């Protein structure tokens, strides 16, 4: 029982880091411009496919492939922002929700036409790691490290660069930031790009240990919602904590009840937290 | 006594927005509420009409304790208000806006009845010919009048006016003042926040002065204008001081 709990929890937490990265992108966008990006899932899937294509066709190491995938994610984010989001940034939430959902449909539609919905798999194994009675694929460990690295980079960027500080200023109060001479449109576009980039990277990391299809981003998008709410919408670092919590829960719950109850608990908790503490369990506000 | 406010206290986090505010409003009276920016005037309105719940204190309206009652219940008892920043229901026509007031106000009219009443109050504020326009298309001064018409259509006993004169030009101010006086003639009591000193001094029966959430003076306009504490409160705002002293 205890062995099972520990191994289950380890698996969950390692995965939680990667969930955290995916959620971080979503929460960053929400924090800066109060837009819930429903195109998040497809971007995660594109991250998966980007890594897959680079690995399968060009033989690039999947972890190395993360760099061009991140770049492509950033650019994709900028493009999406300019085309679909900028016009509705001040409109009611319905508009931005549906605009990003339209982008979701476009990406999935094109993705399905190009890749079909058949499952793909990156055939790159790092073998398994054994620690005492624990056995888990090394790729999960590397994934977790990757996630921490990405989080650290984001943190450094937000707190120690000019552009990062501008993003935080706009997140804090867009009007005031504009009065201070911060070009808010550019900052908004950059934040959207960064959020999308995080999604793409998360997708790349996930692709190294799970098979995926064009539609695989959906579940991670839903998980990202849950994580954002747990960690507090709009707090990038809270997302990592939220990710770990969700990963932990996913490890913990199966020890006590059938695995199929996990989503019931997960989404039940999600609704509950939204109702009781919409600012998240660790929300500052 | 139509409104009694006793010992009202409201905090936002660490900020003390209102502390121990106590005053009465007599039936048929126009009571002016002044104070520097951030003094807590709008907060006081919000606590009175149930948008916020106070930490301490009591509000009673026509002898009934309404402390902590939700804003819609307060409205149905006959207490209407306007907003400092106008809040028209953009997609609805001007007439429909006013009908909302009539339908859900004190007398809870049917749609048909509300339409008739709405035209009455639109007439009173001079917007009758704009009834079919979407309210979003009005200019600021018209929107202010719309707010007023909406509040009036609720047939309130007491009207809270939050800076109905702000942003209007002198001739618009004059006609709005006439409207306010006419409302009082109809027997509606009024509590109004105003920054246009000349206007509030001339129209109010009594004035309350709020500073940092505390009531620092109450009395007839002349008394208040000469109160040293009031002048001091406004000193941080030289413009205001000048205007107050020019009185």
């Amino acid at each position, binding site marked *: 029982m205890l062995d099972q709990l520990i191994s289950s929890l380890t698996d969950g937490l390692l995965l939680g880091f990667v969930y955290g990265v995916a959620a971080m992108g979503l929460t960053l966008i*929400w924090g800066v411009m*109060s837009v*819930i990006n429903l195109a998040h899932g497809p971007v995660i899937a594109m991250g998966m496919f980007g890594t897959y294509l680079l690995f399968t066709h060009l033989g690039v190491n999947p972890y190395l492939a993360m760099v061009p995938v991140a770049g492509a994610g950033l650019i994709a984010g900028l493009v999406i922002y300019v085309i*679909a989001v900028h*016009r*509705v940034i001040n409109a009611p*939430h*319905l*508009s931005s*929700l*549906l*605009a990003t*959902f*339209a*982008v979701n*449909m*476009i990406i*999935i*539609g*094109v993705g*399905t*036409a190009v890749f079909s919905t058949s499952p793909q798999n990156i055939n790159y194994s790092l073998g398994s790691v054994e620690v005492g009675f624990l056995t888990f694929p090394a790729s999960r460990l590397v994934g977790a490290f990757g996630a921490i690295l990405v989080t650290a980079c984001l943190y450094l960027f937000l707190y120690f660069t000019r552009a990062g500080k501008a993003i935080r200023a706009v997140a804090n109060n867009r009007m005031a930031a504009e009065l201070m001479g911060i070009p808010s449109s550019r900052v908004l576009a950059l934040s959207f790009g960064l959020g999308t980039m995080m999604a793409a990277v998360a997708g790349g990391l996930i692709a190294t240990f799970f098979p995926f299809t064009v539609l695989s981003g959906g579940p991670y998008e*839903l998980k990202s*919602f*849950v994580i954002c709410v747990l960690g507090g919408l709009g707090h990038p670092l809270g997302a990592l904590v939220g990710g770990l919590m969700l990963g932990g829960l996913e490890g913990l719950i199966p020890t006590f009840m*059938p695995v*199929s*109850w996990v*989503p*019931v608990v*997960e*989404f*039940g908790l999600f*609704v509950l937290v*939204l*109702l009781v503490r*919409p600012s998240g369990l660790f929300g500052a506000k | 006594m139509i409104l009694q406010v006793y010992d009202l206290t409201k905090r936002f986090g660490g900020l003390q927005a209102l502390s121990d505010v106590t005053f009465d409003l007599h039936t048929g009276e126009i009571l002016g509420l002044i104070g520097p920016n951030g003094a807590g005037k709008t907060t006081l309105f919000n606590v009175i009409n149930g*948008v916020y719940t106070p930490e301490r204190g009591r509000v009673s309206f026509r002898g009934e304790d309404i402390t902590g009652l*939700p*804003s*819609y*219940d307060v*409205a*149905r008892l006959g207490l*209407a208000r306007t*907003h400092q920043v106008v*809040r028209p*229901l*953009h997609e*609805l026509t001007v007439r*429909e806006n006013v*009908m*909302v*007031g009539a*339908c*859900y*106000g004190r007398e809870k009219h049917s*749609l048909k009845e*509300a339409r008739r009443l709405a035209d009455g109050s639109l007439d009173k504020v001079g917007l009758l010919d704009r009834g079919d326009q979407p309210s979003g298309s009005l200019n600021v001064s018209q929107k202010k009048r719309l707010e007023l018409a909406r509040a009036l259509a*609720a047939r309130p006993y007491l009207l809270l006016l939050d800076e109905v004169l702000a942003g209007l030009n002198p001739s618009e101010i004059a006609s709005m003042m006439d409207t306010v006086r006419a409302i009082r003639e109809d027997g509606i009591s009024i509590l109004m926040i105003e920054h246009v000193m000349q206007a509030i001094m001339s129209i109010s029966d009594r004035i309350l002065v709020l500073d940092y959430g505390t009531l620092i003076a109450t009395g007839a306009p002349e008394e208040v204008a000469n109160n040293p504490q009031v002048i001091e409160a406004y000193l941080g705002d030289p413009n205001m001081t000048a205007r107050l002293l020019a009185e």
Partner: protein
Amino acid sequence: MKVWQKPGFWLPLVIVLVWGGAVLLIHQDTMRESAFVLLMAVGLASSLNILLGYTGYVSFGHIVFFGLGGYTGFYLLSEQGWPLFASAIGGGLLSAFIAGLVGLAVLRLRGAYFALATIGINEAARAFVSNFEPYGGATGMFVNFSAYQKYGGPGPALWTTFTFLWITTMVVLVASYLVKHSRFGLGLLAIREDEDAAMVMGVKAPKAKTITYVISAFFPGVIGTLYFFKNGNIEPGDAFQLHMSIEMLVMVMLGGMGTVMGPLVGAVGYQWLRGYLLTSPIFKDLHLAVAGAMLLVIILFVPAGLVGWVRNHVQRLQKVLE
């Protein structure tokens, strides 16, 4: 003028009346099947519009009521042997009841938070039903074929189901019109435009929103029962499809939210477009992408939707198109 003297009231009703009536008269199976899909879309979109269009609350997981109601109606029908009509009403009532409970809590949330919560509720409901043994768990339930004999064999049973759906759709449209043109509806519109201001004017927002939520949840429950009876079985994966929720939203937006005609036009338009794209050799593989691009264009440039746009631009039609 009384309600029945207004063209805006009659237009959607007569369209559906004539349309469904013609299908019944012509009595052709293929035509009934496509009319079933279209009418169902109209019914669902109009129900959603009662909440979305009049109160401005974006329910992203509205399909949960289709699923829960469908499941309950199906359970009553196949496991308890209730007649179709009673089961459908039972399914609707359960949806309405759940909406009442959930609404009291969730409707306190505004904007995007509410939208997120509705997604969460849908996912939680799906996961719960997958584990709920009386409802067949993950593999769902089916109607024993002999159940159709009660309605004179499978053929007549399907026509009966269609007739119920047809009537339900008309009831939804009537409800939609009556809500919009009532004192209650005026309060809802006020909530949509500015909830706090509405409350200050005396609109009991929490109660009004919950009632609206209940109304807009009832019909999907009824329609769900009819749909799954027609299909002969029900499974969690089919009952709680998030993408159907979003399709409903798209239909409402396409036609024009907050109008009675909008969801009707939007639903038919969307389904027709989808059918066209699927059959077009050029767009066959890209139908989702093309639909997405169209949605984007509408949101960015015609946010009022088709009916809304016509209403705003053609004075003469304002009284006809409600």
